[in-house]
């Protein structure tokens, strides 16, 4: 792994200043994606700006559920407010990777990374979350812009994710048995003003499945999804599964997610 200069700012402002001063720098939260990428030579930042001293973790529940960016997957999984307000989100966090990864990895790092098979992006898009940064608020519909890419500008820091409270939401993931990342994961929500369904693991980045949303608009039940076919436009094939197989899985996982919705 290439060496780098290490910074540990105590405030978001100082973090942003450090990023401006070092254009080849990268932020680090849990390091559970960044460190493996650096070990494999896929990333070689000149500087690491560790966000660990910001102490930006925790959950607050009011008319919406706000999770600070530095909250770990383990904390989200076990938080009483998350379990009460959006149990599907706690369940999603509880099944990311393994216990050791969940002790370090954070929601902010996961969505900033936007891995096409990551879990959290589907919850953000499926629930219509708002991403808070040091500079602005971005709707999830505008935040995830494709494979490993987001609307974040250079040096912009994710500070929190705000989830509106759904009437019901569910998540079902078909994990790759080796990596545990989603082969297909579907997050569904009955928002009160329509149904949303977001798909991860399909290959090109998280997206909303219009076919599923259209069918659920007629009734938020698994039966509404009988016979619904999702096209392969947003779906890729690889050695694990063909595009057709993945597209088929979307409906299957959507049904399970609706059945599990609370």
């Amino acid at each position, binding site marked *: 792994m290439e060496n780098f*200069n*290490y910074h540990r700012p105590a405030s978001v402002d100082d973090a942003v200043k450090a990023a401006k001063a070092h254009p080849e720098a990268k932020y680090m939260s849990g390091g559970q994606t960044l460190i493996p990428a650096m070990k494999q030579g896929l990333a070689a930042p000149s500087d690491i700006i560790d966000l660990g001293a910001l102490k930006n973790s925790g959950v607050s529940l009011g008319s919406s559920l706000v999770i600070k960016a530095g909250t770990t997957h383990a904390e989200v999984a076990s938080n009483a407010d998350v379990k009460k307000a959006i149990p599907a989100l706690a369940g999603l966090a509880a099944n990311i990777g*393994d216990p050791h990864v969940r002790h370090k990895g954070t929601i902010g790092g996961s969505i900033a990374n936007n891995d096409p098979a990551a879990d959290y992006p589907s919850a953000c898009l499926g629930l219509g979350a708002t991403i808070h940064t040091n500079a602005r608020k971005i709707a999830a519909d505008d935040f995830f812009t494709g494979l490993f890419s987001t609307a974040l500008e250079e040096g912009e820091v994710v500070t929190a994710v705000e989830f509106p409270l759904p009437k019901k939401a569910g998540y079902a993931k078909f994990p790759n048995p080796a990596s545990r990342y989603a082969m297909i994961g579907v997050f569904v929500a009955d928002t009160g003003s329509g149904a949303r369904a977001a798909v991860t693991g399909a290959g090109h980045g998280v997206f909303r499945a219009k076919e599923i949303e259209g069918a659920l608009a007629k009734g938020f039940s698994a039966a509404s999804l009988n016979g619904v076919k999702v096209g392969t436009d947003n779906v890729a094939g690889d050695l694990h599964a063909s595009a057709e197989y993945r597209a088929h899985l979307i409906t299957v996982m959507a049904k399970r997610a609706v059945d599990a919705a609370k």
Partner: protein
Amino acid sequence: MPAISMKVNGQAVCGEVEGRTLLVEFIREKIGLTGTHVGCDTSQCGACVVLVNGKAVKSCTALAVAHDGAEVITVEGLAADGKLHPMQEAFKDNHGLQCGFCTPGMVIASIDMVNRLGKNLSEETIRHELEGNICRCTGYHNIVAAVKAGAANM
């Protein structure tokens, strides 16, 4: 090079590290505690798991410099007064190891599991919770039995 200090198995240690020095490299190469293993370079095998401030983490996927001031427990820190920790004892009694390479991580991960979930663990829970620990010898059967027995004795 930044200087860091930590408490490892209750003892104060310090040393100079590069930014890129991994926590596992600090533990093995600077402090000389080689019970913590490195079994992969993809953060998947769990041979390197240690407790940091009471929580299991993969020390191959953590920067030493980011853990200045941390309290770390490695497999060497488990036995007390010449007696194995109940979880170590259970791995021995249940033949929960063959080559032993995965064992330090397995034992630490299992102790973390009990700390979080209590002593009464079902087989299903144990298997799910060991998702981040890979063993290429045993087929897991005896590991699961060891964790169940060790948990009950903790």
